[in-house]
């Protein structure tokens, strides 16, 4: 899971180094409800989370490592990689939803 804010001037995503499970936890981590990122000031409620994408990379690696076992190895390795990657992605999406649903009272 990655945290970001939308740049106030051009709307591009500015990714943050910090991570937390909820906006409340993030506010406690900062010790404040407002933070400065670059030249702009944001409310902690302006910070959003996005999920990372692991399934494709895990599937590719599983398939490549599976070449030791020939064509069946590539297929089984790719499938196992895709399933593990998908499972990680699903967990990440749950964390993202939890963070994005949370808020800090202003």
């Amino acid at each position, binding site marked *: 899971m*990655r945290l970001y*804010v939308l740049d106030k001037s051009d709307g591009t995503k*500015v*990714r*943050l*180094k*910090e*991570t*937390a*499970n909820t906006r409340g*936890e993030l506010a406690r*981590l*900062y*010790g*404040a409800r*407002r*933070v*400065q*990122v*670059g030249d702009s*000031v*944001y409310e902690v409620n302006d*910070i959003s989370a996005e999920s990372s*994408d692991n*399934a*494709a*990379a*895990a*599937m*590719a*690696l*599983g*398939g*490549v*490592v*599976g*070449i*030791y*076992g*020939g*064509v069946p*190895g*590539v*297929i089984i*390795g*790719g499938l*196992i*990689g*895709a399933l593990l990657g998908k499972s990680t992605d699903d967990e990440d999406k749950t964390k993202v939803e939890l963070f994005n649903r949370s808020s800090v009272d202003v």
Partner: protein
Amino acid sequence: MFDKFDWKLALVFLLLIVLSAGYMTNQELVKSAIKSFLIWPHLSKCIWLAVLVSFFIHYLSIKNSSSIYEGLIYKAFGKFSDSAFAAITYGLALTTSASILKGVYIQQIVGEEVYFNKFDEIDIYSMLVVCLFLFGYSTYATGHVVISAIFISTSKYAKPVE
């Protein structure tokens, strides 16, 4: 319809088909390349070097971060110990699985030498599956920390405003 289509997975699927086709048409060449990789005398040293560098980069990227991390070693002993323990664990997992894979591959797939005299076929193939999983998982975990470190280095700190 195309919004939900996962292009990355489709591309990887295509890559695996090409890989399988390449293996089927050049089996001896691929087997010889894998064997050369596994018997390379500097393989273990290279794996250790890659793992240590990866986790050192990871440690540098999280050293000054105030984020909340999960994990028993981190909570009890801190960031350095967590990174060092992970580097040793994955380094050992990668080098051990590569060594066992060398024996299993040369014995079962290439058929040149017998490494495991008193093992049944089922045990040897089980070792192949377990070691492949261990090798793949450790490679993924090591690569993942480097990618995370690169991501953190391109991200920005947020400073509290009162």
